């Protein structure tokens, strides 16, 4: 059955990890959902790249963190935090494309 990300996650956010790096965090509602998504590999570089209209090579890393039932996506900031032309110094509003994702559970 298909679920929207808001049905299965309690936190979906973005933030700088240092001025050169952007991280996306998705924290799932419970460990079972976390395990299912980790095992079925539905969250992968291709999925994230498609949501942001990037190529999979632009997605640096995907890390699963069991204690927080969370998955973390690491990419580089296209404009370094606060440099001329930047639009989000903290990187805190770059998560919205994730909100449209759906998953099979």
């Amino acid at each position, binding site marked *: 059955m298909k679920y929207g990300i808001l049905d299965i996650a309690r*936190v979906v956010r973005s*933030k*700088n*990890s*240092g*001025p*050169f*790096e952007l*991280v996306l*965090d998705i*924290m799932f509602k419970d460990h079972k959902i976390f395990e299912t998504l980790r095992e079925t590999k539905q969250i992968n570089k291709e999925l994230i790249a498609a*949501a*942001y*209209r*990037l190529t999979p090579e632009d997605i*640096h*890393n995907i*890390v699963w*963190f069991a*204690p*927080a*039932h*969370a998955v*973390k996506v*690491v990419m*580089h*900031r*296209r*404009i*370094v*935090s*606060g*440099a*001329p*032309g*930047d*639009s*989000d*110094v*903290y990187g805190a*509003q*770059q998560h*919205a*494309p994730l909100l449209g994702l759906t998953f099979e559970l």
Partner: protein
Amino acid sequence: MKPAFKILSPTAILGYGFPEESFRRAIAEKPDLIAVDGGSSDPGPYYLGAGKAFTDRTGVKRDLRFMITEGVKHGIPVVIGTAGGSGAAPHLEWCRQIVLEIAAEANLSFKMAVIPTDVSKDVVHAALDAGKIEALEFVPPLTHEAIDATTNLVAQMGVEPFIAALKAGAQVVLGGRAYDPSCFAALPIMLGYDEGLALHCGKILECAAIAATPGSGSDCAMGILDETGFVLKTFSDERKFTPESAAAHTLYEKSDPYMLPGPGGVLNLRECKFEDIGNGQVRVTGSRHEHTPYKVKLEGSRPVGFRTVAIAGVRDPIMIKSIEEILQAVRQRVENNLGANADAKVFFHIYGKNGVMGDLEPVKQTQTHELGIVIEVVAPTQEAADTVCSLTRSTLLHYGYPGRVATAGNLALPFSPSDIRAGVVFEFSVYHLMDLPQEDLFPFHMQQVTPQGVTA
């Protein structure tokens, strides 16, 4: 068996505040240390480069007054990391002046250690030549030119400089740029508590009650260390720690939540456990610190020009429909008229279209009925930025785009004057690891603070 060691973190960033009631309840538990993180690189390169605090002076003084007054009264060390927001010499001095004012107003005398963390450019040039500088992920290689252009260049210190100051008997330690957990972990490590547990506890406490649920950056949190773990608790009835909230915080702003690198080591959380022990408290065990060759993270910003901005709104649906073509044409017309100001850069932030995400925005066709446009100009001088911003604003205001029916003007300008000088623009120029060139890179200065000022 070591007694429990209680670390109070009153607020996520010095100046963000805390409820007095929470602080009083925390003090009633007789903490062994009051520590606070004073800064962050999150607010961007300006504050470090310009030597300005991003926190409000009144707020910082209010928070520090509670911490120092109670610390001195009960003999609890007060340790501040990354003073003044960015931890360079001007930030440290700004914060030191606030401490002296508090001592004068509250009639307090105490020993204070001040730890500057500015790194001489000669040291960094030499390290670069010796191959002892390493770029962090996604960061371009360091150059001598970037070092020379940098206004404030600091290194994140580890626990060692704080320990040296505390061993010398400091009641208050005012630290420059520090690895966030250092100010919390130094005293317990000095007293023989486990490094991994102390640093992980500090890692969580540096954001105070943000790691609780509901999270707050303006409320107290406490970490209670023992020989095999630490317990996290809050002092406000509306908030508690849960295993998820504490673990989630470990994830925050980090690229790999299992391996957190810091000065001289990596915090390994692969075996870490978060356990609910009731009453809104969580016990954490299994955090390990593994020593690595000692490197410090350097941070620096350099000026890249001056900024002038203008803010405007658009409500005309014909204009909104072809906003991209219109701005492209305006940009072209402005570029043709720059003359001596050819170095100026013009940016359009189009809120309602892609103002937040820029090129990363997947929604290409906006459905909005109004747009907000910020015209941003960065140029080598303030006058040039003013001139180009004025030219861009007036060109856009009167540009005759195809299909235009509203011939009186294209922009709703909310303010008069419409253009705002935003001053010097900085960018991060140094964000690299450097081999520690000498053990005592960050010596402290001990000062005897009295209500009349510093006497020695």
